[in-house]
């Protein structure tokens, strides 16, 4: 599973995407994905907010993840 990274999330992880290896426990929901990423990268847990987009739409914690989904981590936005 690949997660796209932007802004400060990209800086924290040190890459524009993060792959959860096939051997690891795959997160099945948005909540599990957030849990796993904030465990692997504690700095992500210190952000003002952390959202997840599934197929380029904001996704609530309960949304289930499918292997073909495009998944992105959305740190606090600051456009304008």
């Amino acid at each position, binding site marked *: 599973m690949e997660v*796209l990274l*932007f*802004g*400060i999330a990209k*800086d924290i992880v040190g890459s524009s995407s993060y792959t959860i290896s096939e051997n690891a426990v795959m997160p099945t929901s948005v909540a599990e994905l957030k849990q796993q990423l904030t465990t692997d990268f504690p700095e992500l847990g*210190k*952000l*003002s907010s952390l959202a997840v*987009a599934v197929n*380029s*739409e*904001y996704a609530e914690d309960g949304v289930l993840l499918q292997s073909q989904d495009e998944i*992105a981590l*959305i*740190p*606090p*936005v*600051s*456009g*304008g």
Partner: protein
Amino acid sequence: MVDKIIVEIVDELDPSGVYQELSDPNSGGFCVFVGAVREFTQNEQVMALEFETYQGMAIKEMTKIAQDAMKKWDLNKVVIRHAVGKKEVEEPVVVVGASSAHRDACFTACRYLIDTLKETVPIWKKEMFKNKSIWVSATP
């Protein structure tokens, strides 16, 4: 509704064409907001701002904002355009605008367009100072 909405992410933003884009025979009022790079933030001198986006999602979110505005107010045309990349002091980075028969609708809508963009559109801004850089709003 589609031909009445323009949403774009661009490398170079030129706000000067927005009047033509919003113009239409039924519009007697236009309201446009332009956001630009300001030199000082909390007394610290900014060298530049660097913007990045998750483009596919940003276009979707900007389209939703424009469509919602058209539903909420009696608008004829809406433009939302944001720049990405490195922008220096005085450079424009965002332009939003609406046209309507009378001014009330476009004034109110214009404020909604920029306020909602700042809340929901996946665009990130890094402030570049002389000796450091900071992702805006990232941490409490």
